[in-house]
């Protein structure tokens, strides 16, 4: 029988990575993960978690996207961004801003589309895995991804053309 400890130790690190890719900020990730694990524990106690990885993936993706939407500014740079030292701080700051801009644009998508996009492009999950996590059909995943990509393509090309001008 799966214990809470197993769930935390086996699925905790990949779940953190999911939040990390969406948020890119340690404090925000810790807040989201803490809330998500408390909710997951309630569900675990009630015996309502069938597939822990899928459940946590869904929960954390939506919670992280919510946190991203609530974020008011892109300017807060997480110090852990500079840990590897391969690029100097100015280049890192520019890259960080690009990453945060991408995240902010993704957060503007409708929740399901944003979740599907993150799971596809950040997590590299298959349509079937995403369908399992979100408890929707593979067709619905494909549809949401198509819409998300179309919206993002439009926003990004528009932004890119404005920058070039």
């Amino acid at each position, binding site marked *: 029988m799966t214990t809470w400890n197993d769930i935390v130790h086996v699925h905790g*690190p990949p779940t*953190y*990575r999911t939040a990390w890719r969406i948020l890119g900020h340690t404090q925000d990730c*810790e807040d989201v993960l803490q809330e998500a694990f*408390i909710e997951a524990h309630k569900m675990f106690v009630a015996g309502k978690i069938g597939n822990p990885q899928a459940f946590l993936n869904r929960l954390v993706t939506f919670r992280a996207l919510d946190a991203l939407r609530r974020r008011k500014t892109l300017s807060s740079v997480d110090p852990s961004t500079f840990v590897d030292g391969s690029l100097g701080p100015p280049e890192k700051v520019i890259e960080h801003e*690009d990453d945060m801009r991408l995240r902010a644009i993704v957060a503007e998508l409708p929740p399901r589309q944003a979740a599907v996009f993150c799971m596809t*492009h*950040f997590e590299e999950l298959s349509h079937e895995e995403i369908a399992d996590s979100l408890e929707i059909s593979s067709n619905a995943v494909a549809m949401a991804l198509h819409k998300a990509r179309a919206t993002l393509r439009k926003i990004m090309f528009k932004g890119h053309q404005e920058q070039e001008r």
Partner: protein
Amino acid sequence: MNQNHNEWEREMPLEVQSAINRVRDNPAPSESVERVIKVAAGIEMTAAEWHRGGFSKWFWGGVLLSLVIPAIVAATYILEFDSPILGPIGAGIITTLVFVEFFWNWVRSKRNAGAILLECGSFPSRGFFLLFGAFYLALTIGSIIFAVKNVTSIMSMEGAIAIAWIGLCVAILVYQSMTIWGRLQFRANGIWCYVGLVPWKQVVSWNWTGSTGTTLFVQRKSRFGILASGAVPIPLELKAKVDELMTTHTGKGPLDS
């Protein structure tokens, strides 16, 4: 990686492609991951402690009653008191003893509480306690006047009852007064909850509850389960500051019950 994903990403401007790659490949900070795992693993333990707190409240309440009731019955037989006068004498003795312990604890806690970090105001039902205080003040004065006029000797049965009754009234009156003037304060060494200190190290877990989410519920370590939890209302404008103080001093974030 899926061919379809690559194709879509290749269509994107270069900085977007790079940003997606960085977001995907940037490793999560291991220290933060470990912190989260530690906290998440602790949820079960803390939740179990919450359940134990609920259980121990009933358990210690039962223990207290099971000791007090036989003690009163034994006292009745030993002292050959009649049952009608047992009530006021028993209540007077017990309340006075509890009050002495409470007052001693109040003095000791007040001395050890440390500097005030945040002031959250007086007891919300202060008016109610003021009314009760006035009632007990009148009752105490009336009882003293009645005892002085009617009790011939304090060594008599009437004298014992009068002393027990007045003791009870004074104890309640002093307790009411302490509650009326009590403040909710976050101090250097704990939370001063109107009449007593909850030291930071005794806080097992805490959470925001209530319909507005501004009631602070605290679960503490206590020998007596009945004292192991309590809730205090926090003004909305101070909630963020209280949240910060609780997290800093207890080393724990809010826990959903």
